[in-house]
C-alpha cells in the first residue's frame, strides 16, 4: 500500500485514545496506589479575611491513624515564599501554601492532616482547632483599590499591578470624531471550570535519594516545578513530575503547585511515605482557581460618520482574588487581542489588578483575552444601537479585512490570517438570519422579547512568554518551545513521545497523523506517549497543555522529530539497499512499514532497520555510527522579546477565530432566557482532524453558554462563596445544551508549518453572543446588559427598573466635524 504525503492530516481519523478512555481504561492520578501511601486533608478557613490567632493540632494528632499534621508556621521555617511574577508592590507578597498569620479567602488551607486513610485524615482535620479574629473583608475590586482594608500588609496596597497600554493617538481621534459614546461600567463575572476530575497530587520526598517525586494532574508541570524548586529549596533536577491521563483542566489545574508543595512537605514529615491529596468537588469550587473577574470603567469610544470606530479609551480593573500567583501574566495576556477583530488603531487602556478576599484566579479557558473580547463586543453592539446601524452591518464596517492579513495590530501583534466577513456570511446562512429577523419583528408585535446576537472572537494561541517582561522587565521568560522525540524501537515500532498533558484534546491521534504523513505509513502503526515526565519524556520549560498551542508548538516538535528520524532512516536504508537516498520512498509493504528502492525494486522494513542499529550494530559502517533512530527535536517559536517600555511586540503566533450567532428569547412571565437557535462557525486554519476540532468547538460552546447563563461564583458581603455546590453553581450538561449548528472555514496560518492554528480555548464566543442577543431583545425596554452573566433573576430586576438602565449608563455625543 502506498500512502501519499499529507494524506492523514485533515482526515477524520478516529481518536486513538477514545477506546481506552471510554472503556474506563484511562490511567488517572487517583488510580495510582503506592506502597505505604498516606492521605492528606486540608483544614480550610471559613473566613474570607481573618487573623489566625492559633492553630491547635493536638486533638487531631491523638486520633489513631493520624500520622502527622502540618501548619503554616512549620511551612515558613522549611521553605521560601513562592516566586512572585510581578514586580513590587505585588512582588512583595509573601505567599505560602498554608496560611501563616492571616487567611485571605474562604477555603484557604490553614493546616493539613496526614493519615493512613482518607476518612481518618478528614476526622483529624475536623479536630484541629483554629482560632480566628475576623477582619473586614474586601469583596469588590473597586473597593479593594481604596486600600481601606489591606490583604497583604507587606505589599502596602491591594493594587498589585498597574500599567497603561497606549497606542496610536487617541486624543486626536476623539478630536476628529463625529460621535463619542461613553459607557459608564461593564462587568465580566467570575466563573470557573468544572473538570470531571478534580485536582490530585501524590507527593513523595524520598529520604533514600533526597528527591521529590510527584504523580499529579497539573496541566503545566514545567511551570510548577520552577516554582516548587525555589519554594522547597531543592535543585530542580531533584524533582520528578509525572502526569498521566487528565480528566479536564481548562487551565485551572495549572495553579495546583501550592498543594503539590504541601504534599511534599507532609511526605518529608511522615518519613518519606507518599502522600496523596484528592480534591473534593466543594474544595475545587471554593479554592482551586476561578477565572478573572474584570470591571470596565469610563469607556469612551470615538467613531467617524460611518460608525467606524477610531479609538477606545477605558479603565480596566481586574480582580485576581487573594493571591496573584500565575496571575500578573493576565495583566498583559489580554493585550494579545487589543483591537479584537476590529481595525481601530488608537487605544488607551489603563489596566489595574487588585487582590480581593476571594479564591485566587487561574488561567481559565479563554484566559484574560475573553474578558477583553467580551468588552469589545459589548462596545460594538452599544455603538451600533446608538447610531442605528444593524449589528451585522456594524461589524462589517469595522472588521479587519481578509486582504489586510497578516495584520499588525496597534501593539505589534501579528494576526496571521482570517476572514471575518466570510464567517459572518456563513453563520447568517446557517442560522437563517433573514427568517429570524422576520420572526423577531412578529414576536415583538406580540410583546415577546426575542433577540439575535453576534459574537466574534479570537483564540490567540502559542504565547510569546516575553510578554511577561511587559509585566515585569526582570522576568526571565521569553519565546516558547516544545520538545518531542520520535524513534524506531528495537522491533521497528514507531514511538513518538511528547511532553504535553492532554486532557481530552486528542494529542495521541493528531501526533500520529503528523508522523504518518512524514513516514508515509498509517496512524495505527504509530504509538504516541503523551504525559509529562521530567525524567523520561522530552520537555522544555514551556511543556504542558495550555494556551491553545499544541497544534502549533506540539505538532511542530513532533513534525521536526519525525523528519529527523526519516532522514536517519534514509541514510541507513540507502546503505542497506545499496542505493542513493533520492531513490528511496517510504510506505507500507507486505512486511509492514518499509523503505523501498524505486530503481531496484527492493525494500527494507522498519524491523530490519531498527535491528541493525540496536542489536546487530557490528554491521554498521563507521559513517553511520551517529544514526540512533531515536531523534529528539526542540521546536522554538520565532519570537522576539517585546519592547517593554512601549508594550509593543508580537505576543502570539496564531489567531483562530470564532463567530457565533444566537437567537434568545426571554420569557415574559418567568424572565428565563432560552436559546432558540445557535450557530458556531470556526476558523482554525488547516484542520488537522475535523471531528476533534468540531468536538472542541462544541465543548467551548457549552462552556461559554454555561458561563453566560448558569455559572457564576457568587460571594456574599463577608466573603462566603454561595455557589460552591452544583445545586447553586450549575454546570451546563447535555440537558440544557441547545442544538448547535456548526460550520467552518479555513484560512491557513502562514505562521505554522501545517497552516493550523491552536483553537482549544474557543475565545468564550457564547458569552459575547448571548450578551449580544439579550441586549438585542432588551434595547427597546431601555435595559442595558451590563454584565456577562445573566439569568432570570438579574433580567427580572433589570426589567423592573431596579438596575442597568441604558440611558443612565450610556451617553452619546454627536459632534460637528472640524472644517476640512
Amino acid at each position, binding site marked *: 500500500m502506498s500512502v501519499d504525503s499529507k494524506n492523514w492530516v485533515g482526515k477524520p481519523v478516529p481518536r486513538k485514545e477514545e477506546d481506552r478512555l471510554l472503556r474506563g481504561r484511562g490511567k488517572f492520578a487517583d488510580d495510582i496506589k503506592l506502597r505505604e501511601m498516606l492521605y492528606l486533608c486540608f483544614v480550610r478557613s*471559613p473566613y474570607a479575611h481573618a487573623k489566625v490567632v492559633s492553630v491547635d493540632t493536638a486533638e487531631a494528632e491523638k486520633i489513631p491513624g493520624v500520622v502527622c499534621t502540618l501548619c503554616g508556621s512549620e511551612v515558613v521555617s522549611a521553605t521560601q515564599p513562592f516566586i512572585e511574577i510581578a514586580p513590587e508592590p505585588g512582588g512583595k507578597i509573601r505567599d505560602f501554601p498554608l496560611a501563616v498569620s492571616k487567611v485571605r479567602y474562604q477555603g484557604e488551607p490553614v493546616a493539613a492532616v496526614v493519615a493512613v486513610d482518607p476518612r481518618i485524615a478528614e476526622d483529624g482535620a475536623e479536630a484541629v482547632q483554629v482560632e480566628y479574629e475576623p477582619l473586614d473583608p474586601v469583596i469588590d475590586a473597586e473597593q479593594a483599590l481604596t486600600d481601606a482594608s489591606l490583604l497583604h500588609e507587606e505589599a502596602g496596597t491591594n493594587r498589585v499591578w498597574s500599567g497603561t497600554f497606549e497606542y496610536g493617538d487617541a486624543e486626536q481621534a476623539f478630536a476628529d470624531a463625529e460621535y463619542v459614546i461613553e459607557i459608564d461600567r461593564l462587568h465580566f463575572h467570575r466563573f470557573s471550570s468544572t473538570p470531571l476530575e478534580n485536582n490530585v497530587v501524590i507527593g513523595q520526598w524520598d529520604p533514600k535519594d533526597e528527591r521529590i517525586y510527584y504523580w499529579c494532574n497539573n496541566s503545566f508541570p514545567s511551570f510548577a516545578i520552577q516554582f516548587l524548586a525555589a519554594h522547597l529549596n531543592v535543585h530542580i533536577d531533584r524533582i520528578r513530575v509525572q502526569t498521566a491521563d487528565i480528566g479536564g483542566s481548562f487551565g485551572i489545574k495549572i495553579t495546583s503547585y501550592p498543594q503539590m508543595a504541601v504534599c511534599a512537605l507532609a511526605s518529608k514529615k511522615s518519613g518519606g511515605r507518599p502522600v496523596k491529596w484528592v480534591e473534593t468537588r466543594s474544595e475545587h469550587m471554593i479554592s482551586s482557581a476561578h477565572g478573572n473577574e474584570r470591571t470596565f470603567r469610563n469607556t469612551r469610544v470615538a467613531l467617524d460618520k460611518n460608525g467606524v470606530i477610531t479609538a477606545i479609551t477605558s479603565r480596566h480593573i481586574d480582580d485576581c482574588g487573594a493571591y496573584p500567583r500565575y496571575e500578573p501574566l493576565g495583566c498583559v495576556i489580554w493585550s494579545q487581542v487589543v483591537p479584537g477583530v476590529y481595525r481601530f488603531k488608537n487605544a488607551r487602556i489603563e489596566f489595574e489588578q487588585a487582590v480581593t478576599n476571594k479564591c485566587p484566579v487561574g488561567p481559565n479557558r479563554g484566559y484574560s483575552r475573553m474578558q477583553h473580547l467580551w468588552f469589545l463586543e459589548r462596545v460594538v453592539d452599544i455603538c451600533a444601537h446608538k447610531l442605528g446601524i444593524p449589528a451585522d452591518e456594524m461589524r462589517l464596517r469595522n472588521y479587519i479585512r481578509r486582504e489586510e492579513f497578516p495584520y499588525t495590530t496597534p501593539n505589534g501583534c501579528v494576526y496571521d490570517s482570517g476572514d471575518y466577513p466570510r464567517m459572518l456570511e456563513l453563520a447568517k446562512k446557517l442560522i437563517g438570519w433573514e427568517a429570524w429577523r422576520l420572526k423577531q419583528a412578529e414576536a415583538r408585535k406580540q410583546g415577546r422579547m426575542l433577540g439575535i446576537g453576534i459574537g466574534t472572537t479570537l483564540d490567540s494561541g502559542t504565547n510569546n512568554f516575553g510578554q511577561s517582561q511587559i509585566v515585569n522587565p526582570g522576568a526571565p521568560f521569553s519565546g516558547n518551545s516544545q520538545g518531542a522525540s520520535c524513534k524506531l524501537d528495537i522491533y521497528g515500532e514507531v514511538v513518538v513521545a511528547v511532553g504535553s498533558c492532554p486532557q481530552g484534546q486528542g494529542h495521541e491521534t493528531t501526533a500520529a497523523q503528523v508522523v504518518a504523513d512524514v513516514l508515509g505509513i498509517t496512524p495505527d502503526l504509530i504509538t504516541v506517549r503523551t504525559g509529562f515526565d521530567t525524567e523520561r519524556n522530552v520537555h522544555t520549560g514551556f511543556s504542558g497543555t495550555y494556551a491553545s498551542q499544541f497544534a502549533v508548538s506540539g505538532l511542530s516538535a513532533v513534525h521536526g522529530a519525525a523528519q529527523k528520524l526519516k532522514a536517519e532512516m534514509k541514510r541507513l536504508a540507502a546503505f542497506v539497499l545499496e542505493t542513493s537516498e533520492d531513490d528511496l520512498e517510504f510506505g507500507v509493504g507486505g512486511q509492514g512499514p518499509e523503505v523501498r528502492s524505486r530503481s531496484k525494486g527492493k525494500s527494507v522494513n522498519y524491523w530490519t532497520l531498527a535491528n541493525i542499529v540496536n542489536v546487530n550494530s557490528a554491521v554498521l559502517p563507521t559513517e553511520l555510527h551517529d544514526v540512533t533512530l531515536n531523534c529528539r527535536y526542540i521546536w522554538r517559536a520565532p519570537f522576539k522579546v517585546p519592547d517593554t517600555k512601549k508594550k509593543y511586540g508580537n505576543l502570539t503566533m496564531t489567531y483562530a477565530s470564532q463567530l457565533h450567532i444566537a437567537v434568545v428569547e426571554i420569557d415574559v412571565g418567568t424572565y428565563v432566557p432560552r436559546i432558540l437557535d445557535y450557530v458556531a462557525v470556526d476558523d482554525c486554519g488547516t484542520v488537522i482532524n475535523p471531528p476533534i476540532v468540531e468536538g472542541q468547538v462544541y465543548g467551548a460552546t457549552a462552556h461559554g453558554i454555561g458561563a453566560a447563563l448558569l455559572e457564576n461564583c457568587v460571594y456574599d458581603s463577608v466573603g462566603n462563596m454561595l455557589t460552591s455546590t452544583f445545586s447553586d453553581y450549575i454546570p451546563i450538561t447535555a440537558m440544557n445544551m441547545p442544538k448547535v449548528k456548526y460550520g467552518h472555514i479555513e484560512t491557513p496560518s502562514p505562521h505554522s508549518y501545517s497552516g493550523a492554528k491552536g483553537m482549544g480555548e474557543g475565545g468564550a464566543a457564547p458569552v459575547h453572543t448571548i450578551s449580544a442577543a439579550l441586549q438585542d431583545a432588551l434595547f427597546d425596554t431601555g435595559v442595558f446588559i451590563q454584565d456577562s452573566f445573566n439569568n432570570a433573576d438579574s433580567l427580572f430586576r433589570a426589567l423592573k427598573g431596579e438596575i442597568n438602565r441604558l440611558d443612565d449608563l450610556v451617553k452619546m455625543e454627536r459632534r460637528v466635524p472640524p472644517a476640512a
Partner: protein
Amino acid sequence: MAIKFGGEFEVGRQPEEVYDFLTDPNKFAPLLPEFRGVTVQDAEHFTVKVNVGVSYIKGVADVKLQLAEALRPQRAQYKGQGSVAGGNVSMVAGFDLAPAGNGTKVAWQGEAQVFGRLTSVAGGLLEPLGKKQLQKLIDGLQAALSKPMDTTPGAAS
C-alpha cells in the same frame, strides 16, 4: 451571610430579676436550643456546647459567649463565636429591659453572621432554621421567667 433578628415580649417580673436571670450563664445557657452543657470561665465569659445540624451536616458546636455589655437592670448584650464542621458563627444578641406595668418589657435584637461551607451548602435553610431556633430560645425565656424565681445563685430555673 447575616441573619438579623429581633422582637419583644413582656414578663411579670421586675427588670432586676429579669436582668439577673439573663446574665447568669447557668440559668440562661440551658435555654439555648439543643443545649448540652456549659463551662463558666468567669462572670463574663462562658462556653456553651450545643448540638447543631442542618440536614446531613451535624455536629457539636462550642460557642464562646462573652457578656459584653452589662448595665443592670436596663441592658445586657452577649457577643459570641462558635465553630462547627462546615462553618463558623459570630453573633451579637442584646436585651433591653424596661418596666412595663408590674413586669418588664424585654426587647431583644441581634445579628448572627455565618461563615464557611455551611452557607453555600445550606445557605437557604439557615435563616428559617436560625429563626426557628431563636424562637425556641425566646419561648424558653418567657416560660422560665413566668415560673417562680429560684433565688439560689446559679440555680437553673
